[in-house]
């Protein structure tokens, strides 16, 4: 009891003065308590797991039971040695740690599943990256599964589709988003109209992605049937890269507006005032002073929004169709995006009787998709860090 230990004494000051030699640590549990409780919990949990599981010993079950026992044990021990308030404090601290560890499980599991399933395929047949699915039939996949023939096909068309659709969506949404946030910060000045825009942009953030897809489809269909005609040939035209890009823009604009607005707001007013004092026009001030100052933040916000829409599946699924060949033209004909490719390969394997080759392609594509999205996120962070304006002078 007299050993002073940091881990066991976070609130030394609240200990009532005891008669022990060291009054500061009196009435506290010794520092090795948690080790003892942990060891006890592990042993008891091993016993319980062995009893419950019969012959098979479940490692997962053992860990879960041990964790529960440890949290309960620490609570009881603290309650006996110290007091109920300290025990409650410790209980919640342990529960918060448990929440954190619990959230790591799915993250690690997802990343492990993608890497373990996708990486071997990608290393074995890197041709997947520069081949599309043209001419690949079920018999190819059956040959792969039964006779060990090399994996046929690939997802070049998915990469091309994702690239073209995302590029087009960026071209549509960045000017609109940028100009809107300039309006909000420089011209709106908190009037009712800019408040309305802020509110509806927030609401737009919550539009389900599939609804955005349906909107783009309905809008393009309405335009085409009104101006071109409503024969089956014209209805076929509705599904194209442009429609998907419109759908993605609906999802992308609010993200761009919010991040850009935030960046423009942190530009110091002194810069604007200095520019006005020199007699520079407002629009030139915005172009030459405000935008360059906020450029790093804007660029990183745009990159993050691109990363967000790159992974979107549902809106592209309902707007761009699904084909096996590479299509570079987003204004004519169906296009396949990488996420849609993954979904289709998993749900409708190329050979229904032999699904493994399709699943392998899907996991390899998933790995590539995750790498692209993570890279975009990384670039956004680097841009934001490296080119951030220095925060002085306020």
């Amino acid at each position, binding site marked *: 009891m007299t050993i002073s230990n940091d881990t066991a004494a976070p609130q030394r000051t609240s200990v009532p003065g005891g008669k022990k030699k060291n009054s500061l640590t009196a009435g506290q549990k010794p520092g090795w308590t948690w080790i003892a409780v942990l060891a006890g919990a592990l042993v008891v949990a091993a016993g319980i797991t062995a009893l419950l599981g019969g012959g098979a010993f479940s490692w997962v079950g053992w860990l879960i039971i041990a964790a529960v026992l440890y949290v309960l044990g620490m609570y009881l021990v603290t309650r006996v040695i110290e007091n109920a308030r300290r025990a409650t404090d410790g209980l919640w601290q342990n529960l*918060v740690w448990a929440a954190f560890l619990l959230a790591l499980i799915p993250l690690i599991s997802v990343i492990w599943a993608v890497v373990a399933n996708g990486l071997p395929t990608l290393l074995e047949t890197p041709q997947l990256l520069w081949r599309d699915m043209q001419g690949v039939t079920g018999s190819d996949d059956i040959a792969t599964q039964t006779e060990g023939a090399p994996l046929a096909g690939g997802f070049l068309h998915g990469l091309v589709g994702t690239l073209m659709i995302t590029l087009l969506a960026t071209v549509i949404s960045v000017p609109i988003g940028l100009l809107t946030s300039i309006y909000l910060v420089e011209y709106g000045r908190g009037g009712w109209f800019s408040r309305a825009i802020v509110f509806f942009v927030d609401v*737009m953030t919550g539009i389900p992605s599939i609804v955005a897809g*349906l*909107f783009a489809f309905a809008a393009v269909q309405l335009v085409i049937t009104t101006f071109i005609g409503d024969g089956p040939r014209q209805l076929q035209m509705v599904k194209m890269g442009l429609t998907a890009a419109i759908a993605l823009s609906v999802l992308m604009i609010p993200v761009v507006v919010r991040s850009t607005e935030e960046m423009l707001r942190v530009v110091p007013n002194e810069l604007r005032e200095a520019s*006005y004092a020199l007699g520079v026009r407002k629009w030139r001030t915005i172009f030459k002073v405000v935008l360059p100052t906020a450029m790093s933040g804007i660029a990183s916000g745009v990159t993050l929004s691109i990363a967000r829409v790159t992974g979107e599946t549902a809106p592209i*699924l309902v707007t761009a169709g699904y084909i096996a060949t590479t299509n570079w033209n987003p204004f004519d004909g169906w296009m396949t995006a990488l996420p849609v490719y993954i979904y289709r390969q998993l749900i409708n394997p190329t050979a229904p009787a032999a699904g493994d080759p399709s699943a392998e392609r899907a996991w390899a594509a998933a790995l590539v998709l995750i790498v692209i999205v993570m890279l975009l996120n990384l670039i956004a962070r680097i841009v934001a860090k490296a080119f951030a304006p220095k925060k002085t002078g306020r």
Partner: protein
Amino acid sequence: MTDTATEPSRKTSLKGSRGGEAGDRVFSGLALTAGIVILLVLAFVAVFLLIESLPALWPEVFSDQDSIESADTFWQYVWPLMAGTLIASIIAILLATPVAVGIALYISHYAPRSIATPVGYVIDLLAAIPSVVFGAWGMTVLAGAMVPIYAWLNEYLGWIPLFGGTPTTTGRTLLTSGVVLAVMILPIITSLCREIFLQTPKLHEEAALALGATRWEMIKMTVFPFARAGIVSSIMLGLGRALGETMAVTLVLSPGIFSWSLIQSGRNATIPSEIALNFPEAFGMRQSELIAAGLMLFIITLAVNMVARWIVSRHKEFSGAN
């Protein structure tokens, strides 16, 4: 912030040199137009969806058929889907909220600074993973792992209708979808809660600690009262995301008719998964039905999001006054 940045109104030769008044007018006009475009887009989303779904909503008036294809009336068709969507989202919220609040507290009040920042990055990483990857993971990894749990639930808690019926052998049930959704909305709720927890006035926290409160008592007395509205609104935003999430549910769930049992395969469906599964092949009336279902989803999520934003904006005014 920009109130002081008013423009001098007198015309001088200094301003006339490069880029005249026209430039100013054109640019402010462009900025205003962009704002209007955003409002128009949102209005168009509602209007276009409504126009395209009219044949399914009132088949007698707007189409040449007497009824829709999948059921007698549109409501008969859509209520099981709405029920499935709501149940999956509520499961996700119930599972994700305690964990998310716990992690947010961990980052803001428990973890040492050197750990808190990387943990924040890791949570953001979770948010960056595309939904189709979560779906693939849920379908292949999680569904299999859940089968023994379902068998156990059915054996010991089978008298509750939620766990009744024949338990699944594939694990592709509404409950699994709910778990996947919970993982997906976890980062959203966490990052919003973290922001709010960090805004708690430092003086309140220090006052509580100085009065002898333990850390948990300090959090209970200062952080939670301050953050209550924020937590509620972040849960609502997470709910909005869960309601609209498509691919994860589509890949995980094997859909079917409505059932109270959460552990049977081939039962229940959600609006987004119904649309994603059927829309690519749909035409005519079936397409209208699906767009009408999408309209219902749009209305539900719009309501949820507006309530959440309203709570946030009301809370902002109060905290600003304090």
